[in-house]
């Protein structure tokens, strides 16, 4: 049995400096044990015999290694009401702001991209129905999009297991889902039919443009993993899909500071979000 390679403090610092520069994530002394463990895991998974060879792989982002490494530190499991602080921000601040700007006639449009197996767009729907006092006064259009047609099919089917529903109260499960087998529930047809799902590659403007402009976009845990050029194009595409004054929310450990200066950062009680300002950004 081979020994675990020793990794020195300086090597860990090199790695943490690199990740901070690349993703904006800060790994403090307190997280050192977890970082080291993750390095060992990834060295084994990639067959890297030395830290140097693993670090070279990470630096070049070979086969998406940055995402693999960082995955262990982000909540990448999808479930209903994940990062609900952003949902709170949506109803407490963002929607009121949007309505002040655009008035009464238009529908509220919200985009969840990537939507994966649908937990996010359906969560938004349920949250609005449950928490937004104005929900009956406006038309609300929710679109969920992903590059993976497999997850989209599952999203459309609206069938979920116990883990996906773990943050929902029994009241909500009973209200919006019907039992569909052992530890399986299916979201009610009313709700299921009210969310539109589409396939999109967010790096392709020809694919993003037809979706039109949204008031709020949720784009979590994808932008930061693109290469430099793709990140910029995707950000520009999303900017186009955002109405002037509209908001975009990223994943909890992501920041626009590593992606693009196009959006202006806004801080609300529940969340940090980014805004397509009317006029020049930061102007």
């Amino acid at each position, binding site marked *: 049995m*081979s020994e675990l*390679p020793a990794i*020195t403090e300086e090597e860990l*610092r090199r790695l943490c400096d690199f990740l901070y520069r690349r993703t904006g994530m800060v790994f403090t002394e307190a997280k050192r044990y977890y970082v080291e463990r993750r390095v060992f895991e990834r060295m084994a998974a990639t067959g890297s015999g030395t830290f*140097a060879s693993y670090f070279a792989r990470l630096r070049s982002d070979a086969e998406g290694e940055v995402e693999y490494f960082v995955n262990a530190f982000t909540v990448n499991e999808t479930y209903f009401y994940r990062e609900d602080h952003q949902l709170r921000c949506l109803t407490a601040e963002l929607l009121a702001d949007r309505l002040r700007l655009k008035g009464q006639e238009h529908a509220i449009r919200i985009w969840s991209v990537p939507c994966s197996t649908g937990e996010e767009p359906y969560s938004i729907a349920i949250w609005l129905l449950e928490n937004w006092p104005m929900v009956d006064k406006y038309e609300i259009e929710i679109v969920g999009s992903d590059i993976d047609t497999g997850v989209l099919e599952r999203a459309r089917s609206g069938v979920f297991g116990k883990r996906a529903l773990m943050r929902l109260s029994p009241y909500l499960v009973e209200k919006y889902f019907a039992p569909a087998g052992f530890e399986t529930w299916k979201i009610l047809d009313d709700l299921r039919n009210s969310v539109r799902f589409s396939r999109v590659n967010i790096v392709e403007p020809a694919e993003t443009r*037809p979706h039109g402009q949204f008031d709020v976009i949720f784009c979590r845990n994808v932008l930061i993993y693109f290469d430099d*050029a793709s990140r*910029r194009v995707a950000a*520009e595409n999303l900017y186009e899909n955002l109405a002037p004054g509209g908001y975009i929310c990223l994943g909890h450990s992501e920041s626009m500071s590593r992606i693009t200066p196009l959006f202006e950062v806004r801080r609300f009680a529940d969340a940090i979000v980014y805004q397509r300002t009317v006029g020049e950004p930061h102007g």
Partner: protein
Amino acid sequence: MPLIRKPAGSSSPPSRDPVSVRTALTSGTDDERWAAARAAPDMPEGVDALGDALATEHSTRVREAIFTSLARICTARSVERVVPYLRSDDASLRTGALDALRAMKTVVGPYLPRLLHDEDADIRLLACELARNLPSEEATRLLCGLLDSERESNVCSGAVEVLAEVGGREALPVLERCADRFRGTAFLEFSIRITVDRIRAQSSPPRE
């Protein structure tokens, strides 16, 4: 039920006529120039239309889009059109140019030896950052080559900063020589010491 579902929309694709894109890049509203900048990579001679437009574009958003498009094109020609802006007096143009070159790491390599020995120290300093995106061995080699002949302490600091990330043991003698030449320059001495410590403390491979 207030939730509604509408059929997928369609949008008319932007104009594909090459003449109108070149004109649109330098006239019209910010939104029109922005759209033209984004469409330009798909146009013949788009790289030169984009490079030319940079000279007169004042909107930061449109400039960003021009740089993004040049980065997407990612050819020797797009590098050549961007490099001159490293010399700009405008800090935001320098930033835009450097970010675009960072995004073109697959084609910028051949330009680095020249940039790292440019007569302008500011260019040499910015070029150190571009070396960061190369594989470690190549970056180390280029930066060590710079360090042995570099007279400006700020440029040395820039090279040392990158060597802190990429430097291998072969950089140690060069770093020691640099420290000797710049005794008394506190920040550079500090940087070299940290970088030397990092390079020395590389773990040994596990026993077979």
